[in-house]
């Protein structure tokens, strides 16, 4: 069985955001990690490999330093790794990203593609399902459990208050939730081997059946009109009010901030 796992290198926005002295976001201080949902997807693939035997290939689209996440994935047990990197691919929204990844995957043999549900920087949860559209294969999102059944997968698909048990024939794509499992640690030996294994590097030319019009910033239908970083809170308001006044004040703030 061949499994392709798509992973993304992201800044650790959950693990402690740091601010510059002027109160703006210090992006440089953030550690680069494997996106948590993707890591769970990789762990799911490795468990399938442990149980049923499989070849696991990890694929990432990113800057050259995304090499780090591929090494980490191999140190956890992935067999092969591919880095898709090219200037013309930069600035891509989810349409262009999914087009790129699909173009890379078309070069590979696969029974199962696993992606994370969403990345903690983009937070869109779109790339996985869009890859399945480009490749014309079934997709099951929000997987909280994955099992094999002959030529099909049996997946528990999470909804808000229940879950469905679904069966899909392979090849298909599954998006993983970080709640799916607790990823294993790398092993020291795995790390040493990972750095001895070659990472395959692909550029635009290696993508199959894609149109330049759909790649990179130019190929992205959604465009950023404006973006600004959150500024750290300065000391806030202090109110001395009676009960009714205090409640009114708080309700106003909670509504304004969409808490209620």
């Amino acid at each position, binding site marked *: 069985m061949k499994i392709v796992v798509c992973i993304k290198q992201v800044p650790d926005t959950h693990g402690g955001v740091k601010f510059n002295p002027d109160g703006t976001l210090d992006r440089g201080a953030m550690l680069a990690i494997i996106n948590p949902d993707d890591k769970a997807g990789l762990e799911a693939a490795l468990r399938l490999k442990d149980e049923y035997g499989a070849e696991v290939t990890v694929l990432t689209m990113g800057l050259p330093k995304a090499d780090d996440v591929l090494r980490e994935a191999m140190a956890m047990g992935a067999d092969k790794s591919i880095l898709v990197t090219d200037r013309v691919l930069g600035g891509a929204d989810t349409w262009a990203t999914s087009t790129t990844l699909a173009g890379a995957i078309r070069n590979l043999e696969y029974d199962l593609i696993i992606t994370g549900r969403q990345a903690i920087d983009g937070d869109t949860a779109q790339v996985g399902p869009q890859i399945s559209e480009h490749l014309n294969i079934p997709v099951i999102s929000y997987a909280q459990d994955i099992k094999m059944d002959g030529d099909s997968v049996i997946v528990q698909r999470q909804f808000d208050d229940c879950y469905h048990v679904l069966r899909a024939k392979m090849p298909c794509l599954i998006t993983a939730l970080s709640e799916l499992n607790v990823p*294993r640690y790398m092993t020291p030996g795995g790390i040493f081997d990972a*750095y001895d294994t070659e990472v395959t590097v692909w550029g635009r030319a290696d993508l199959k059946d894609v149109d330049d019009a759909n790649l990179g910033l130019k190929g992205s239908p959604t465009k950023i009109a404006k973006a600004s970083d959150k500024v750290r809170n300065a000391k806030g308001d202090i109110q001395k009010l009676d009960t009714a006044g205090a409640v009114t004040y708080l309700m106003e703030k909670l509504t304004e901030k969409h808490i209620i």
Partner: protein
Amino acid sequence: MDFTLSNKHLMAQSLFRDFAETEVKPLAQEIDELEIFPEETVKKMAKAGFLGIPVPKEYGGQGCDPLTYVMCVEELSKVCGTTGVVVSAHTSLCIDPILNYGTEEQKQKYIPQLACGEWLGAFGLTEPGAGTDAQGQQTKAVLDGDSWVINGSKCFITNGKYADVYIVIAVTGIVEKRGRKQKEISAFIVEKGTPGFSFGTKEKKMGIRGSATYELIFTDCRIPKANILGRQGNGFSIAMHTLDGGRIGIAAQALGIAGGALERTVAYTKERVQFGRSIAQFQNTQFQLADMAAEVEAAKLLVYKAAMAKTTQKVYSVEAAVAKLYAAQVAMNVTTKAVQLHGGYGYIREYEIERMMRDAKITEIYEGTSEVQRMVIAGNLLK
């Protein structure tokens, strides 16, 4: 001379740090308070390959170098001195001598299971009458047909009772050397559960209280003839060479304890406000922290150098002694200052810094006291 760590060492370091923060740190206080051996942690470390780091792949190990192993002990010790020594004693004092002196059969029999952590290892040299004077050994092993019969006891044995495999040093006879009678000392591999091998006192200690420190008791304990490790009569030199490697592990433990204490203290001094400012803003604090940092950095270089010496040299006794002597001293110094810089909170067990000071002390004592390290260094200087 390139002092930068390679990518793979950096990644290994972050693996150890991540594991230590996530799995070891939350339990450190409890295992110290309740003197519990961290069995669950050992299982997790086994799964992650931490119990066979420098062991060659062909014996089921991770195939990494001594530096990687040292970084593992260091990172673990930053958050828990106990957990660090579990790995150190197992790897340096049990796996290493079997790898260096064992027959192929012994290696095949013991190493794979030790390296994957299914079995834990320990080393029994010390006796009530034989500490620094290791030649004061009284435990005897007598050949009787197809077995060695061991009688005697060992004390202060790390990983005692939990370990499955023990390297035991014993007297096998008297020999004459240059007209003087001398004890013939040999090394043996003894498995837990062997009839006649039992455990006595569990020691209550000042520090590394989660570490299982037990008395080993041998009463007509019969082990197969094939379980002698190395040549008969070579036991003392096997023990000494094994301790050289062990010292590097303990130096790493001391380094980790010092480094962990320093990190906590830096964070604390930034938070603690007195006289309207953080105490980190007072020059007295800054100068102390600077001295502590310089000491830790120096210790680190000595420890890593000793690890590199073990990779490339057959004999590394002096490098190991220098590293352990200095790192242990730094550990004591830095942790004592760390407690002081925490003020009253430094004395409160919940803040964990006092535990680091208690843990640091043993690094000046076991696997060769600092006095012994000085003997080794001076002996080399003056030969």
